[in-house]
């Protein structure tokens, strides 16, 4: 992760350069949908499927973000993230667990020496409807509790009011608070709706110093979409072309099965390239996806589709 941090610090671009990128944003909706639908016909079988499924596990931010979350629930989920399938040592650990700030220290305890990260949502996730001072406090608390990664939301109020500068400045401030902690910035694509908006928000978030851009909070009915992921990938590519900085993408919200997850991997592979197929550059935020992936892995290896009770709950 330290490598990413150095990159971030040296590549954060000014508001003026970000505005330059925004000016040329033009996305054609029909073209985006057509490209996604064409990539969705890729046929992933046998070895390539197993490899893809292992990628998905290793890129998974196992998530619970509920008012009812307790220490007990976090213990269970974190243990599962460390060893998703206790009967199969070849299955990697998940990338991280993603929790609310008040449960960061609980997750940290269980993580121990494993390399699973603890990610915390902050900045008054999911709405972000508080002043920046409160967002900074929220974020600072999560960091003090030991979070390795911080998932913030952009200020959609400011975005829709046309105050892109405010959206940018808030992310810059939160990134400063994060220091060397990994910053993922949630665009909430289901609210932004248009691909032009998604591309603009992506470029603002990248210009302001985010390490990752993330599709959704998972808290509204419109979660991630492959189209949004494609548009974000285009933004990440463009940002790399102009600054040299490689940012990551996290897709979250509504991704529940292996087939769907593999289609995201295809988009990333064909649009950004092999380098992005690593937990350093691509993540899935999900709660139930992991179980389906584990079952598919077991099926590929044993040719038997196992009931869910063969896998520990998280």
């Amino acid at each position, binding site marked *: 992760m330290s490598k990413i941090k150095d990159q971030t610090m040296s590549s954060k671009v000014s508001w003026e350069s970000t505005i330059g990128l925004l000016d040329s944003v*033009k996305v*054609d909706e029909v073209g985006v949908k057509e490209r996604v639908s064409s990539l969705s016909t890729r*046929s*992933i*079988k046998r070895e*390539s499927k197993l490899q893809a499924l292992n990628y998905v596990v290793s890129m998974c931010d196992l998530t619970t973000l509920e008012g009812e979350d307790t220490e007990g629930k976090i213990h269970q989920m974190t243990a599962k993230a460390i060893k998703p399938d206790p009967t199969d040592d070849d299955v990697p650990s998940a990338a991280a667990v993603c929790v609310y700030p008040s449960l960061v220290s609980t997750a940290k305890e269980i993580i121990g020496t494993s390399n699973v990260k603890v990610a915390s949502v902050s900045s008054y996730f999911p709405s972000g409807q508080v002043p920046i001072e409160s967002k900074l406090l929220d974020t600072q608390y999560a960091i003090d509790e030991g979070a390795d990664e911080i998932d913030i939301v952009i200020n959609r109020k400011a975005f829709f009011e046309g105050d892109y500068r405010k959206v940018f400045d808030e992310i810059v401030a939160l990134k400063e608070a994060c220091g060397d902690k990994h910053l993922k910035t949630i665009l909430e694509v289901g609210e932004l709706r248009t691909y032009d908006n998604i591309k603009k928000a992506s470029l603002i978030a990248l210009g302001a110093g985010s390490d990752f851009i993330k599709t959704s909070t998972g808290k509204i009915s419109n979660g991630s979409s492959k189209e949004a992921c494609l548009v974000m990938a285009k933004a990440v590519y463009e940002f790399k072309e102009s600054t040299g900085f490689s940012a990551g993408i996290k897709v979250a919200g509504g991704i529940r099965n292996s087939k769907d997850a593999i289609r995201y*991997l295809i988009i990333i592979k064909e649009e950004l390239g092999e380098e992005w197929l*690593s937990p350093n550059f691509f993540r899935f935020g999900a709660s139930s996806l992991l179980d389906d992936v584990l079952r598919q892995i077991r099926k590929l290896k044993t040719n038997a589709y196992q009931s869910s009770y063969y896998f520990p709950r998280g």
Partner: protein
Amino acid sequence: MDKWEYSESIESDSIVSIQSKYGHFIDGKFSTPNSKKYLKTVSPSTEEVLASISIGNKNDVDSAVNSAKEGLKTWSKTAPSERAKYLYKLARLIQERSREFAVLESMDGGKPIKESRDFDLPQVAANFFYFAGWADKLDISWGTKEMKPYGVVGQIIPWNFPLLMLAWKVAPALATGNTVVLKPAETTPLTALLFAELCEEIGLPKGVFNLVTGDGTTGSELVNHEGISKIAFTGSTSVGKYIQNAVGERDIGLTLELGGKAANIVYNDAALDQAVEGVVNGIFFNQGHVCCAGSRLLLQEDIHDEFINKLEKRMQTLRVGNPLDKNTDIGAINSKEQLEKITSLVNEGVNDGGELFQIECDLPSSGYWFRPSLFTNVQPSYNIAREEIFGPVLTTLTFRTPEEAVEIANNTEYGLSAGVWTEKGSKILWTADRLDAGVIWANTFNKFDPSSPFGGYKESGFGREGGRHGLLSYLKVQS
């Protein structure tokens, strides 16, 4: 972790059964050819011989035309709604057996299975459904009841979309009450032969659809046969001119759908990433074996470098190989002859001074293959900017103003199709108004629908296929 490669995902060819030798389909059944000459149809991706097909001679064509004349007696007494039923039956049967057709098309022609499966076959069925619908509504199509079919129609189709071109021709011809003698291309006869089996299976009245296989000599016999009332041809401009000469002194109908050298105009205010996709689809779809392919990329000069950069990166992700692999984007070149033509034109382009980019990829050791190619630094006077290459080769030209774009786009003997890419609606309309092309796509390319007429200007031919206008290719309006 290791690089993530897609494992082979091969569509099984066990679904098709190919006979070693085929006759012609005349008078409702397969018959022994009069001609004893055969030619071999090979799979362009493996060079394996798939079957022997008869080279129909004068007598074979004669039998087929006579059969069509007999068939016309029945067909003209068949109620239009009954004609529609046969076409609906064909459409449904094609859908039911679409996997079989798609595999056969990819084996015989070399196109990737994802295209024959997701484009050709759905379009084939859609055309039969569409024209079936017109069969009993011809009186309202042009507001007159005074319309008569030509009678016996000779149809000659190309090798790039073998079954789809059959559908474009056979469906409207039968719907309007004509009977047909069809000659498929010599390199891709197999799906037409399978279609003939369907005609037998649904009990299409004898003589309504006849099929004579063969080469150029067979086509020539058909064109010159005095029993034919109409010729519909899709193929090269040189053959089209031959046909026009041959029928010049006879009172018969003629529709020609010939070559193209379409301009794909990308303005600096286009959504560039999607324009790149459209340009790739425009030229590399079906290995560039598309008469309306966007083979001339016209770039506004100020976005040239950025666009070419994106385009080359995108081209590099194209997957060239086995047409039956579901992940193949670019299949085999249709024939050895076509490969030689492409190669020679590309060499000429390099000698003229064009800068050639070809993607890096492994090519199979047997079969006919050509790497997706992009020429920059091309002047409008070079042959690669003027002649139809009919392969996966894109030629780039630049322009400064919309006026100049239109001038360059129209500076060709062809006029089949064109593309315009800009986010500004008014500029789309301004440009489209001034382009001499039969089909113009805006912010997309290579989109087809049975209800939309297709056809060219200038040396790209005349007559329209598809839509209400397509009916006129098979009807004589008498009032």
